[in-house]
């Protein structure tokens, strides 16, 4: 739920309750006022009646006709003594409405020429009931229009006032740390939004800069490591030429050389990764994948032969990919070499090019629990100590660079990597 909708709903609810309460309050106040007014009226009438009786002391006192608003009864002395003047609400039958309607009645007593009388004067309360109805209706109307107004306001604010906020949000949603251009955040006259945008702009810039530095650092470090490694490798190459080398020395030298070569390969792989991440393989061209896959399979035939592997190449469709030719060659080579390295002797490898994907499937030695982690850096599945754990990470980097989708599945006893282009 949007913040604005929520705040509107809450305020609408509060207003709704407040208005209902105020409706009751107004009704209570008004009805109190009306009752006071009516009571006053009744008192007035009482005085009128008593005055007219006093004015004509000799006229006989009798029960008035039908059309009057009061009743007179003679009562016993005991009843007279018990009767206290009071007002009360009573229902009375109304001829027009044909139903009982609430009335206000003043009950009082007086003595005229030694006779005890009870006087009851009544007045219709209909006005008050109508008034309550009117109040309730108008309160309802006010509530309804306020609700409509607040939702209209909500909509309008969403459209106008919050526009910079939503614009910022949509930019942030698509923001990636390695994007080339900075965010273009909207300007706003609202203090909070301006501050938010400034903070976001600052934060993204700082992060982008840190990311750039880090990427540059890896590349520079790899470059710097290259020279001493090259010198060390050249020295071992020169040392093994010596005819005076003892077997023990040669073994030590062999081990030294292996480690240096491993270090060198690691360094080159890191350099390649950072170059891919730094997008230093700019030029793209149309790469014929079928040709590339076939060429790579041919090229590594010797390895398959050496390990006694059976390699099968199935090409169904032509796939042209717009990418750096060099990187595509690295991608295909890494996939095929990965399969060649990890297939047990005597196993089979099936390379299939079809429906805009390349699938490489090989006999697996065991099932892996989380095969997708193999795309991570320095993740090794193999028992071969030689593996750097960067081959598939490079594949993943290249896929990320061009928006390809790599996946690993394990259909019974086999291991399959598929790249969807």
């Amino acid at each position: 739920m949007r913040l604005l909708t929520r705040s509107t709903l809450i305020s609408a609810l509060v207003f709704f309750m407040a208005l209902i309460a105020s409706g009751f309050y107004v009704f209570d106040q008004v009805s109190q006022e009306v009752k006071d007014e009516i009571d006053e009226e009744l008192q007035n009438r009482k005085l009128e009646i008593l005055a007219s009786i006093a004015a004509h002391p000799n006229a006989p006192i009798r029960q008035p006709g039908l059309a009057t608003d009061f009743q007179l009864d003679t009562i016993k002395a005991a009843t007279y003594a018990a009767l206290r003047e009071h007002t009360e609400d009573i229902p009375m039958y109304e001829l027009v409405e044909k139903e009982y309607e609430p009335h206000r009645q003043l009950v009082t007593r007086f003595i005229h020429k030694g006779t005890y009388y009870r006087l009851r004067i009544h007045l219709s309360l209909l006005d008050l009931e109508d008034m309550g109805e009117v109040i309730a209706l108008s309160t309802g109307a006010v509530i309804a229009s306020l609700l409509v107004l607040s939702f209209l306001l909500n909509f309008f604010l969403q459209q106008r006032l919050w526009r910079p906020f939503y614009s910022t949000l949509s930019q942030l949603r698509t923001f990636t740390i390695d994007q080339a251009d900075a965010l273009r955040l909207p300007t706003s006259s609202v203090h909070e939004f301006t501050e938010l945008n400034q903070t976001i702009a600052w934060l993204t810039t700082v992060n982008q800069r840190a990311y750039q530095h880090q990427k540059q650092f890896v590349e520079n470090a790899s470059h710097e490591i290259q020279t001493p490694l090259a010198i060390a490798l050249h020295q071992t190459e020169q040392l093994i030429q010596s005819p005076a080398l003892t077997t023990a020395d040669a073994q030590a030298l062999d081990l030294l050389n292996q480690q240096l070569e491993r270090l060198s390969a690691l360094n080159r792989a890191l350099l390649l990764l950072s170059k891919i991440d730094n997008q230093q393989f700019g030029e793209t061209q149309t790469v014929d994948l079928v040709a590339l896959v076939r060429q790579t399979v041919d090229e590594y035939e010797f390895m398959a032969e050496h390990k006694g592997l059976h390699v099968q190449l199935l090409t169904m469709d032509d796939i042209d990919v717009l990418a750096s030719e060099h990187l595509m060659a690295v991608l295909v080579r890494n996939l095929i070499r990965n399969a060649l390295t990890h297939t047990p002797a005597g196993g089979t490898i099936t390379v299939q090019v079809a429906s805009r994907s390349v699938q490489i499937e090989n006999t697996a030695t065991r099932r892996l629990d989380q095969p997708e982690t193999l795309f991570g850096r320095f993740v090794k599945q193999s028992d071969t100590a030689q593996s750097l754990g960067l081959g598939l990470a490079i594949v993943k980097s290249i896929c990320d660079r061009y928006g390809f989708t790599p996946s690993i599945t394990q259909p019974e006893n086999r291991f399959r990597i598929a790249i969807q282009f």
Partner: protein
Amino acid sequence: MKLLLIEDEPGLSQTISQFLQSQGHICETAITYQQADEKIGVYAYDCVLIDLMLPGGNGLAILKRLKQDHPQTGAIIISAKDSLDDKLAGLDLGADDYLPKPFHLAELNSRIKSILRRMKFEGSTSLDVGRMRIDTEARTVFVDEQPISLNRKEYDLLLLFATNKNRVIKKSALAEHVWGDQADQVDSYDFIYSQLKNLRKRFSQAGYELDIQTVYGIGYKFSPDC
């Protein structure tokens, strides 16, 4: 042969020049742009190795001047950058080869010899190693003028051995020379053994024993019959 090595890293400059001297060349070194420029202006060389990133200037400018003043001098770019742009620019300016760092000395040796062969013998592309003759233009091999049929990889292997005779070549150098850049994985180089076995077989069928021996498991050495 007289070579000039333009390389600003003293350690690298030292090992490469020592190696080139051990191969019977006269090798001079320059470690700054200024030095390189002066030496090229004063002396003539058979082949110049140029590092592109130099203190004081870009190696490409030196290459340009070299090819203007001494078009007969061979030039190899050795660059740590391994960028396609530099490679194309260098070859455009007349560089004869481009070797990305780090490289094996055996590889450098093979490249230099190939250039010197072309430069010195006016395009003669024949390489004689004992009874064996390699026509590097036609990529064919003869023993006693009898052609030996080799596939591309076998030929590449043989050429590296022939240009580095009596030297131990590391297995990794052989693998990289024939199968290209191994940037991302470290393999066991066992497969080289079977490749060499095939190569020997080709020659023994023609009645020639190719003397390639393994040395302490580090590499292989070709000792021709001369």
